[in-house]
């Protein structure tokens, strides 16, 4: 079988995948699955692509180009050192790097590729992307929409008509699309988004929350010192990840700063509820886009077969909850949301090569897992209340923690009964 690369050419990061033994693999290098979509020249004029280029952005912006995807299809040129380059040429450098990464991993050259683009890309922008691929020495067998690619990871060959809502919340952008699949034909019915909203905003909000609290306690603004700010930002990023699985996270940074010669430490507990309160207004905005997208597609929520989450920031549990509440549908996050676009492109490549492919296989919990506890059940206090801990369709292995309290004072023992099912009453699970 001929290998066809699946390339997610992103604004911030790009990735490349292939099909091997009927399964999708993301090609990684040096432990990194994604490649920052940044191109630059070092002080000696050598080409830098990916992390090195990203690293020198602050020092040498005149020699570094990033977010070139936003300029695709325009006649605008960007300056790379003394050279003026078209967006296609810059994108071609990124695509060539991904192609070479695949070459190094596979030990042979692969010339064909499927490249993804946002659903809102115009024909001109798509043509520019194809041109970039050709400049990179690739035969672009197809250009597909990002939501289409994401939907293929879940449903490459649906027998009957399926409509999917693809909610893509990346680091810096958000978009939502309604995709319809029927007998190999994929159509994007509608697409909405916000190019200025993403997970980076969540980090910023949490960082400001932590810094404000620290300032209130110690009268020192951690944002004023670059070293302290950098440490807080790294710490809140970690805390944010932790809050996806745990109800609280500790931010502990020793000797973060000093006040009148006295060392100060950052030791703060962040509750998930606090974090969710911070980001809720941003997520409300995304839900408005979901509503608009459904209305543009002239569909009701109950006409959607499944909801797929794409983009690293979509891991936030509040996203699942809010979408579930608004749409009343199960939310799917089985396939790595950071990589499912490139995986979907590889699946499209596999289908073009004549392979009979199924969805990306991921071990999941088929039912919600939880424990019995005393709580409110149909308006009455009941000991048969089902406390959900691990939602169904969660990829395995999974670890989740939750906080429960004893039912009376001085209680010395508890009996934990684990159940699986979807009923709020454990007797039915």
């Amino acid at each position: 079988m001929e290998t066809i690369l699946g390339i997610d050419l992103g604004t911030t990061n790009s990735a490349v995948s292939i099909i091997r033994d009927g399964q999708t693999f993301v090609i990684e290098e040096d432990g990194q699955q994604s490649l920052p979509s940044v191109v630059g020249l070092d002080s000696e004029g050598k080409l830098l692509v990916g992390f090195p280029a990203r690293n020198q952005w602050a020092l040498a912006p005149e020699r570094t180009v990033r977010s070139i995807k936003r300029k695709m299809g325009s006649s605008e040129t960007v300056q790379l050192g003394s050279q003026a380059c078209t967006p296609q040429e810059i994108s071609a450098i990124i695509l060539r790097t991904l192609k070479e990464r695949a070459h190094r991993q596979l030990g042979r050259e692969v010339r064909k590729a499927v490249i993804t683009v946002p659903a809102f890309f115009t024909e001109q922008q798509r043509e520019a992307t194809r041109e970039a691929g050709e400049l990179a020495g690739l035969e672009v067998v197809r250009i597909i929409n990002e939501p289409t690619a994401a939907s293929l990871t879940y449903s490459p060959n649906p027998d009957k008509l399926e409509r999917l809502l693809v909610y893509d919340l990346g680091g810096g952008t958000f978009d939502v699309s309604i995709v319809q699949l029927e007998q190999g034909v994929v159509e994007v019915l509608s697409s909405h988004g916000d190019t200025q909203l993403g997970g980076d905003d969540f980090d910023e909000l949490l960082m400001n929350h932590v810094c404000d609290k620290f300032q209130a306690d110690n009268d020192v603004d951690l944002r004023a010192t670059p070293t302290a700010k950098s440490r807080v930002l790294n710490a809140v990023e970690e805390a944010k990840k932790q809050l996806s699985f745990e109800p609280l996270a500790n931010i502990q940074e020793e000797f973060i700063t000093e006040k009148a010669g006295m060392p100060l430490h950052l030791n703060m507990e962040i509750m998930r509820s606090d974090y969710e309160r911070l980001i809720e207004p941003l997520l409300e905005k995304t839900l408005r886009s979901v509503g608009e997208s459904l209305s543009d597609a002239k569909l009701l929520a109950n006409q959607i077969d499944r909801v797929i989450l794409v983009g690293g920031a979509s891991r936030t549990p509040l996203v699942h909850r809010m979408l579930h509440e608004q749409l009343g549908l199960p939310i799917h996050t089985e396939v790595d949301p950071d990589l499912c676009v490139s995986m979907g492109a590889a699946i499209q490549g596999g289908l073009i090569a004549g392979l009979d492919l199924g969805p990306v296989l991921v071990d999941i919990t088929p039912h919600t897992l939880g424990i019995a506890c005393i709580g409110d059940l149909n308006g009455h206090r009941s000991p048969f209340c089902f406390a959900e801990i691990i939602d169904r369709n969660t990829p395995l292995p999974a670890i989740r923690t939750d906080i429960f309290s004893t039912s009376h004072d001085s209680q010395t023992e508890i009996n934990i009964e684990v159940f699986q099912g979807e009923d709020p009453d454990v007797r039915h699970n």
Partner: protein
Amino acid sequence: MNDWPDHEQLLSRFRDWLTQTQAECASLDEYSVEDELPHEKVGLYQLTEQLTALRHDVKLLTKTSRGLEERNEATLLSMNAAIDQFRTVTPQQEAAAQEAARPLVAAIIALDESLVRGRRVIEQARRRILEDWHVELQEVRNRLDTLYRTQPWWRRALIGPWHRATRDVYAEHSLNTGRDIFDSLLEGYDLIQNRLQRTMQEQAIVRMQCVAKQADPHCMTVVEVVNDPAHPPGAVVEEVRPGYYWNENVFRFAEVKAVGQR
């Protein structure tokens, strides 16, 4: 225009060659072709028959070779797939092992970073406390000296030995007190750090040295650009967050402040 030789002439030559060959075979002592091959008259009919058979054979061979070629192509593809798989097995195992070790490496790095930071703070505290201590002692001594000088001569004579002894005690304390404790504390701290360093060496974890070097985008992220005429453009003036190598690969980029282009 026909350049073909006359058929009869061609057959005659072929017949001569066959006769000659037959004779040569016969002359090879005990082996007699005549015993094995029946005498057949070689004519156009027989030749056509042979050529037809030959043509059929060639067709069969072509078919077989095509089949072989197709099979070879298929084998080549399977071999490529097998090579792909073979290539991926070891790297996948290595990658899995590396992936499993990453959290431990990250923990060691975090510990090293914290210890270095802690040491810096203790050194600062030592410097500040000893200096402050010294200044305070100096102040007390000056006040005592002033008080001593303002006393009448007879009182000065009376308390002179006590005043000198007090000065000696202050002098001794200003030199040693506190410093010994801090030095001992730092020595112990050194031992902890050395032990960690040995572990890091064994695990091929190396802390990057960035300050005063040129910002290297392959291992450092420039997070802030400063204007410092004392250093050349691109030079790192401060390490905001240390970077580390693991097995000679960058494990974590250093975050640095560097001098901007002029």
